[in-house]
């Protein structure tokens, strides 16, 4: 996609002109576009946008602003891990056999207080640093769901119902470990090929390497985050809210509806418990499904996974995670 990748197919002269032009005008072009936009906004307030466009803009910007601190935290953490630890040391931290490594990876999710936007770039860097794909992905799935901040938020959203917190913890950890084990059984060559491009510049100063990794990951994961945010916002604006409320009565339908809603809404895992609690007419199992599916599969997350792990892998991984998440919610929901 980048000019340098196509450089081999165009005559050398032309390629070098393209590069020169990119060097001289990339920064200025961004500044110019932003200036023009700001001036336009001043003289044409609202730009004649109707209420739906405005609502879509508000939600897109809201998801972006809210995800930004977590994205930066995750990217920074990933960059520091990548630059300051060697693959050997990372590998020594984990059990060498696959199944125990997945269990450790899944449980390590307790340690990253953030939401799913942080865990995608971190797990990409872990994999590039030599952590087995199954363990890194188990970490990615469990971190947004079972970290202390999210569990406390869940307890606040469901006052007097600690079984919802326990249910969420158990079901989400089970999803992470099960999907991690499925990844172990498959050949992860497809992702490894992609994350290899996340290699670290070990020749220059360490802070330069951190800056390089942060720059790369924020732009890559952030660009896809915007894709997911704008699609999720469009669906929120276009689908009338009453549609899903009508189906609370039938249990099977309710579970599938709440799973669909979790995928579509793309709400941060720190907020999803409050939304789930608001669906008072839904069964506890359906509410649990919403909280277990959301941090594992949603539009902005799948979009980011496409960016970090590649389209082929994400196309297999997201449906697998979705099916496992619904199954785990239904099984755990049995006891609620």
């Amino acid at each position, binding site marked *: 996609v*980048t000019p340098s990748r196509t450089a081999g197919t165009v005559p050398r002269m032309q390629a070098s002109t393209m590069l020169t032009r*990119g*060097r*001289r005008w*990339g*920064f*200025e072009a961004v*500044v110019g576009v*932003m200036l023009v*936009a700001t001036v336009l*906004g001043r003289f044409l*307030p*609202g730009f004649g946008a109707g*209420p739906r466009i*405005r*609502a879509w*803009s*508000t939600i897109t*910007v*809201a998801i*972006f*602003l*809210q995800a*930004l*601190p977590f*994205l*930066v*935290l995750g990217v*920074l953490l990933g960059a520091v891990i990548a630059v300051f630890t060697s693959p050997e040391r990372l590998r020594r931290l984990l059990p060498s056999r696959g199944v125990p490594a997945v269990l450790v990876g899944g449980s390590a999710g307790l340690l990253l207080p953030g939401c799913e936007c942080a865990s995608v770039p971190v797990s990409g860097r872990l994999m590039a640093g030599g952590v087995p794909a199954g363990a890194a992905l188990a970490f990615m799935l469990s971190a947004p769901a079972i970290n202390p901040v999210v569990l406390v938020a869940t307890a606040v959203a469901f*006052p007097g*119902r600690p079984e919802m917190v326990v249910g969420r913890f158990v079901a989400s950890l089970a999803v992470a470990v099960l999907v991690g084990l499925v990844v172990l059984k498959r050949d992860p060559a497809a992702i490894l090929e992609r994350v290899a*491009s996340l290699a670290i*510049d070990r020749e220059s100063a360490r802070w*330069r390497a951190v800056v*390089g990794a*942060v*720059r*790369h*990951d*924020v*732009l*890559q994961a952030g*660009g*896809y985050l*915007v894709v997911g*945010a704008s699609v*999720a916002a469009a669906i*929120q*604006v276009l689908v*009338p*809210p009453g549609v899903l409320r009508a189906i609370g009565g039938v249990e099977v339908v309710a579970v599938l509806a709440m799973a669909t809603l979790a995928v579509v809404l*793309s*709400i*941060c895992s*720190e907020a*999803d418990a*409050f*939304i789930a609690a*608001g669906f008072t*007419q839904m069964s506890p199992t359906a509410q649990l499904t919403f909280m277990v599916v959301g941090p594992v599969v949603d539009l902005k997350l799948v979009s980011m996974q496409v960016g970090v792990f590649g389209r082929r892998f994400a196309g297999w991984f997201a449906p697998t995670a979705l099916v496992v998440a619904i199954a785990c919610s239904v099984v755990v929901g049995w006891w609620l």
Partner: protein
Amino acid sequence: MGRDTAAGVLLAVALVAGGTVVSGRATAFVRPGFAVAVLVAAVVLAVVGAASLPARGDDGHARDGHGHHGPGRVGLLLLLPLLLLQVVDPGSLGSTMALGGDNGVARAPSTLVFPPLEGSGTVELTFSEFLGRVFAEDESLVGRPVRLVGRVAGESEGSPRLVRFVIACCAADARPLHVVLDGALGLPPDDAWAQVEGTWDGIMTPGGEAPVVRVASVVEVGEPPLPYEF
């Protein structure tokens, strides 16, 4: 994407995202606590962006990691939310997104206890407290003059309501709360902010999802600094 373009995008994100916090615009999108985190993230991105600017005479198109590919053009999409902020300047959620709400948040089981309202004058309540008291069947609220501030909705369809959104983190998780207005003359148009004084006589809409407030007075007001409840 070249390193100079990348630096430009990161600096633009830092400037616009940080700017929304400094100017107070951010509360239309995220809760105030998150705004602080956005500011910290903006500072980090500004540092990374500035450190990425090619030095004079440097080949600005140098790729990260000696020959490895830089991020693809997808990174340019980070400019989309910035452009929406600068051009559309959408502000807080409008009343369109409140249509069809059922006050589910206020009806969720809660451990909040509402002591009876004291005094006898007009009392200003948040939507969360007002509706919390309604669904908790608080007797001290019935017939008591109350003051509510929210956006007008449904006025153009002849079923006027006053709405306010509750958010947990950001506007994407906003849930509408609403009361139905009865006898509101001179109501400002849909989406305008209004301060309504009136009383609840214990009457609910036929489906039981919202209280009907008998309106005594309506004043159009500006948008509050914190447009959402939490």
